[in-house]
């Protein structure tokens, strides 16, 4: 069984995003970029399934600028076998991404497609579910545990009230939550080896997908800033204030 893992190049999660003064978006010039953390978890899960002998081959795919090759190389260094970049400088919405991933899946024929539950730039949390809808496949979203059982997969999901377990027929779509695993650091020999792994480059036009955006961003602004309040000297003063608020 093959696994297909889509990965996105995003602003590094340690960087505080700066909103552009003209309200057109977030400034990405000279900002450190990395693999979306949830996608890293997806790659790690695929690699672990391969190490356990349950997956034969891992294909990673990214849709984005030429520099997303670095992101794909990082996934190859973690243990993926081959990579595909669908190169575009445009910002592609989840719906169009899902359509391209469907086309890629038609070629790769994966048994599992493992995606991050959301990208930390646009925070949409849509692509996996959309892909499942377009392909009419079952979905196990926000996974904290994935167990392959023959032609089925058991997925434990992080839901609002706790955990929920579902059983899906394969092929299936899985989206990862934070506690699924801790991604490994690639070793230097593996980083060197990754440079020799196949990385194919295509364009959205090769898949005949309309990438015209459906949402127009009219403005991007800073959120309202919360002002720091007062510091109290001791517990007694805190209690006095709580009482004044009617809390105690």
């Amino acid at each position, binding site marked *: 069984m093959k696994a297909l893992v889509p990965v996105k190049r995003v*602003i590094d999660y340690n960087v505080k*995003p700066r*909103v552009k003064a003209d309200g057109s978006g*977030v400034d990405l010039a000279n900002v450190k970029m990395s693999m979306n953390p949830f996608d890293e978890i997806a790659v790690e899960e695929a690699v672990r399934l391969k190490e356990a002998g349950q997956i034969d081959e891992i294909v990673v795919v990214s849709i984005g600028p030429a520099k997303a090759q670095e992101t794909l190389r990082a996934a190859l260094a973690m243990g993926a076998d081959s990579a595909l970049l669908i190169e575009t400088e445009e910002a592609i*919405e*989840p*719906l169009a991404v899902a359509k391209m991933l469907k086309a890629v899946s038609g070629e790769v024929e994966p048994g599992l497609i493992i995606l991050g539950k959301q990208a*930390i730039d646009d*925070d949409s*949390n*849509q*692509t996996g579910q*959309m892909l*499942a*809808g*377009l392909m*009419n*496949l*079952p*979905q196990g*979203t*926000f996974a904290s545990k994935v167990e392959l059982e023959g032609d089925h997969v*058991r997925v434990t999901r*992080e*839901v*609002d*009230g*706790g*955990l*929920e*377990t*579902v*059983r*899906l027929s394969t092929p*299936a779509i899985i989206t990862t939550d*934070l*506690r699924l695993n801790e991604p490994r650091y690639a070793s230097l020999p593996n980083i060197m080896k990754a440079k020799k792994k196949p990385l194919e480059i295509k364009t959205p036009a090769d898949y005949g997908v309309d990438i015209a955006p*459906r*949402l*127009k*961003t*009219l*403005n*991007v*602004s*800073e*959120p309202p800033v*919360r002002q*720091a*309040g*007062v*510091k*109290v000297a*001791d*517990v007694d003063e*805190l*209690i006095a*204030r709580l009482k004044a608020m009617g*809390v*105690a």
Partner: protein
Amino acid sequence: MKTLVYVAHDNVHLGDATLATVTAASKLGEVHLLVAGAGCGAVAEAASRIAGIGKVHVADDAACEHQLAENIAPLIAGLMTDHDAVLFPATTTGKNIAPRVAALLDVMQISDILSVEGERTFTRPIYAGNAIATVESSDAKLVITVRGTAFDKAEAEGGAAEIAAVASTDDAGKSSFVSAELAKSERPELTSAKIIVSGGRALKDSATFENIVMPLADKLGAGVGASRAAVDAGYVPNDYQVGQTGKIVAPEVYIAIGISGAIQHLAGMKDSKTIIAINKDEDAPIFQVADIGLVADLYQAVPELTAAL
């Protein structure tokens, strides 16, 4: 515009998140509700009493029992011939189903809206709430998830809407529910609690968390939350987590104990009305958003506070 609101429920109780979603939908036009479940008659009754709504559609069928996206999405897509927009509470259930509906309708979903600026224009948080985007949709149908803390709750009583049965689509046969481990707690649910007491990594271990945070929460009748650091360290289960990747809360009072205030945590609680922080590090970022800060050793201050209340 005719809107459809997906009702959050567990087949027995109507979920609170529904009410804020009704408020968001009412800004767009007429509001219909959908209750999809099994043996969910009581929920439909409760839904029909929400003030200001039109019809309640009920799909009461075994295929809907666990609200699996594979079975619910086609049902909603079918109902969209008669509706212009569908709005889901941004709960894990809503977030699971909504994009699948959007894909079936070939529209781009608008996630986690904070406000309705016009018939097709909304604001939503991006970059973990570090920026707010105003977006306009060009799609024929709107698929939206609603951040519950950003809208007032509609009145739960006062309406008397018609309840109409709709036929469920068949079980898609691709997925099945196995089990749920839902936390049982006497305490208020995080997303609806008026007061939340939240603990961070400084609590050291689960026993300390239990001994320090819980008594204060019990005294105040508060819900209990935690930072991601505390959850990852295993002090409390994952459903306690407040933050960008956990629950988004906005209680009247949020008491942060031993929480430094990482961006990801602040994103989940900075809309709370009053934030109180107790931390021994006076430079902790939590104090930049706290209305009342106490620089103190939590092991002394919190039991003292609990005893004095």
